[in-house]
């Protein structure tokens, strides 16, 4: 028996390209100044710890979980606002779909107010809007939410900063090292180019990837508009063979 046997593997995660991500510290986003490490991150190839991750079953997901218009009132009364379908596909860097992965979203209501004790903006709460939703991607990595378009809102940063309309996204992937939180913006919003949180991303083409285009092909006449937001998670290195001691 040979001592070394080739083993099929594609487990190692592709190292994160930090230049595609926001800078950790940006004086125009004031809170980042004291909350960003001074010292470099410690880089290392991924291990089993990052290559494995929690798996959630369909039993977790309730019938209204991806319907933010109805899920807070549990179907009793719809939320106020511009009805939209927010849909897209979760893929990895190798352009393979990421199936059965949990996508969670949260957002302000149509007036730009969150249902949260710390949100003191005087836009009113909507009694029928909670602001959270979740779903699992299907076998092709597709997901969808029915929601209302969130309002823009002011926030304490520089003298007169406003967040563009946005939906927060949390995606798991299939390994803990793929974990990602991001935000989806909407085509045509003039506040995107004025937002210091958006501007923490220094690569313009990467900012564009967070802006969901209007998707009339998926809009439903007399019911809702649609926006498409695709997400790419870290991929796994496609090394076909790696030499490992036998039995490892």
């Amino acid at each position, binding site marked *: 028996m040979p001592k070394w046997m080739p083993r099929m593997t594609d487990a190692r995660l592709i190292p994160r390209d930090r230049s595609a991500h*926001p800078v950790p510290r940006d004086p125009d986003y004031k809170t980042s100044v004291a909350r960003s490490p*001074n010292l470099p991150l410690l880089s*290392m190839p991924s*291990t089993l710890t990052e290559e*494995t*991750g929690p798996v959630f079953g369909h039993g977790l997901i309730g019938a209204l979980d991806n319907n933010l218009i109805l899920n807070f009132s549990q179907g009793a009364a719809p939320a106020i606002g511009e009805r939209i379908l927010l849909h897209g596909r979760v893929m990895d860097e190798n352009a393979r779909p990421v199936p059965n992965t949990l996508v969670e979203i*949260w957002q302000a209501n149509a007036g730009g107010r969150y249902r949260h004790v710390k949100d003191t903006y005087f836009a009113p709460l909507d009694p029928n809007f909670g602001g959270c939703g979740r779903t699992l991607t299907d076998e092709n990595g597709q997901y969808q939410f029915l929601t209302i378009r969130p309002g823009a809102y002011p926030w304490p940063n520089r003298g007169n900063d406003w967040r563009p309309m946005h939906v927060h996204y949390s995606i798991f992937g299939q390994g*803990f090292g793929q974990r990602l939180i991001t935000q989806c913006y909407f085509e045509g919003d003039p506040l995107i180019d004025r937002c210091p949180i958006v501007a923490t991303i220094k690569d313009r083409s990467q900012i564009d*990837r967070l802006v969901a285009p209007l998707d009339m092909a998926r809009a439903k006449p007399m019911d809702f508009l649609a926006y498409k937001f695709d997400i790419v998670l870290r991929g796994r290195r496609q090394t076909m063979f790696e030499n490992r001691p036998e039995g490892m």
Partner: protein
Amino acid sequence: MVQKLDTLTETPSQTAGPYVHIGCIPSFAGVEGVYPEDLGLRAVEQGAKGETITITGSVHDGTGWTLRDAMLESWQADAVGLYPGQDGADPKVNGFCRFAADKDSGEFTLQTIKPGAVPGPDGTWQAPHIALWIVARGINTGLQTRIYFEDEDNSADPLLARIEQRPRVETLIAKKTGDGQYRFDIRLQGDGETVFLDI
């Protein structure tokens, strides 16, 4: 010009913001009734094998102030070092837990079992550890780190071995404060800055 690669670039991160709790742990945020319960409430179920432990700590910014709005996630192996989904893993170990800094004190608590050692690269073994992911307002890309334990043999761990400034190893090691009790504080910046990972 050259041929075009058919690989994609990862979607950029954005801060989780101050209202991450609404999306991830809505009941904690006061948004009740959408889901039966928040996701990831328990790292382990009753009857999980291994030593039951409680880890408490807090997250500090560069001025020493304790964050009240941080949300953390943990991921770990079972008592013999198998991750959920691996053959033979303890079915009572969920491995994943979500927990938040207390709104008033900033303290967080993780109740779980001590994980076993897990295989590392090139035939090495990684000392028992729990992976942590920290998000909050002002953190533009979620911060990865790990909790190791001061009463375990960490001498051959391949990750800890990579830390050049040896005193910084201590930032990843939970201190034993009692029977099954550990303390793990996270410093985002400055004196005693935690080693954050790019794995």
